[in-house]
């Protein structure tokens, strides 16, 4: 079996695996990248609100934000995906495509983890910065927007990229509800070709190239930003 390693199966299905499954260009709605990029962007935006919410001095903001984080970090992502799959159509009273189910689930789930990173980043900004900003007459919102967040963001970058890598890998779970991502594309090809060894190893390498370059980039940024 090992000696019969057949790379032809990759070559024959290259377009389906890479264009359809990885990038999302083709007749199916799919694509690992097409799901990962909006999930990262919207997850981060929601994460900023959750993270700042946890630090708020108003208890009616900080308690729900804390519960949100603790809840989603105590539940597997698969569960959250199933929740969205069943509950969103009931709430909207109509069926919705897998793409939106997966995207909503990822944004909600990852925002809990990203929120914790935002919180740690904001807490790493020295208090004197806030006091100085208040002293020069900035409002609370202005202080957060122009003084705290830009500095916090710099401290957050390494952990953020690590979490983006986790999110990128997590998008493979969208295949469970039938979304045509890279993992699902490999399953579909395998059903026809019965070449699991080559196919799953190939997609492992594709995922690895993406995540490894992201982590190299994080290390590079970390080195550049850390005071020498």
């Amino acid at each position: 079996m090992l000696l019969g390693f057949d790379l032809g199966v990759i070559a024959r299905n290259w377009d389906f695996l890479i264009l359809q499954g990885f990038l999302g260009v083709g007749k199916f709605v799919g694509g690992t990248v097409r799901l990962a990029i909006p999930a990262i962007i919207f997850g981060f935006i929601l994460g900023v609100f959750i993270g700042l919410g946890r630090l708020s001095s108003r208890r009616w903001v900080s308690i729900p934000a804390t519960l949100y984080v603790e809840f989603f970090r105590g539940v597997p992502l698969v569960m959250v995906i199933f929740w969205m799959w069943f509950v969103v159509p009931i709430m909207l009273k109509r069926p919705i495509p897998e793409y939106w189910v997966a995207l909503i689930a990822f944004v909600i789930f990852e925002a809990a983890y990203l929120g914790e990173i935002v919180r740690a980043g904001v807490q790493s900004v020295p208090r004197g910065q806030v006091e100085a900003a208040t002293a020069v007459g900035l409002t609370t919102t202005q202080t957060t927007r122009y003084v705290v967040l830009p500095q916090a963001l710099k401290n957050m970058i390494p952990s953020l990229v690590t979490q983006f890598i986790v999110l990128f890998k997590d998008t493979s779970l969208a295949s469970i509800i039938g979304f045509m991502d890279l993992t699902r594309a490999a399953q579909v090809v395998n059903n026809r070709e019965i070449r699991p060894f080559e196919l799953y190893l190939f997609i492992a390498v594709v995922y690895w190239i993406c995540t490894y370059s992201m982590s190299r980039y994080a290390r590079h940024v970390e080195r550049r930003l850390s005071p020498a």
Partner: protein
Amino acid sequence: MNYTFNWSVLWTGQSGEWLLSGLLMTLKLSLVAWLLAVALGILSGALRTVAFRPLRVLATFYVEFFRNVPLLVWMFFWYFAVPPALPDTPREWLNDHSLEFWAAVVALGVYSGARFSEVLRSGIQAIPKTQMEASIASGLTVFQAYRYVILPIALRLIIPPATSESLNLLKNSSLALTISVAELTFQTRQIETYTAKAIEALTAGTLIYLVLCVSLASLMSWIERRTAIPGLITSGGRRRR
């Protein structure tokens, strides 16, 4: 689509039985995979510090490759791709002894082992070199220094990240449903299939996971506080994924 709740599906029929057997399977799978992950984590963590370069490269390759590829891909790999490549005797044994369970154990254990390795490495790196130097200077042998100084500190340092990784392993065990291991998420789906009551079934499964994770996390943070060395280690490390 008007939804009518019927919570009684959770205590009538076989639901209770299914949830319980799912919970036990989740615990069994997580525990066996955890043992494998800890063993691999310690082994690869140690190999990354040896002088012999090929072993170091091998251990680094293991850590960097396995933790950077989605667990789901590993589940499929160990379940669909590896068994056909095995010799006849082990393959037949596995077919008779729940192949899907062992594939899930290996997938989860090997993936988490790579992550444990990183936790151990950063724990050991966090101990100042001077601790070792001071131990040697006060007359301890290297073995004694490890036994009485380095390891007691390192184990305390890694409690928060190791707890977090162990909880990830527990939550990640839910992916075994894709290769039809009848664990908690699988059984939750089964209740949904039989009763068509999705919200009730998901609520039950979600609550069980929450209780498991929250109680494990509280237990570990209690241990962390109990074993904290006053003034040496700042406690209250948050769990991180």
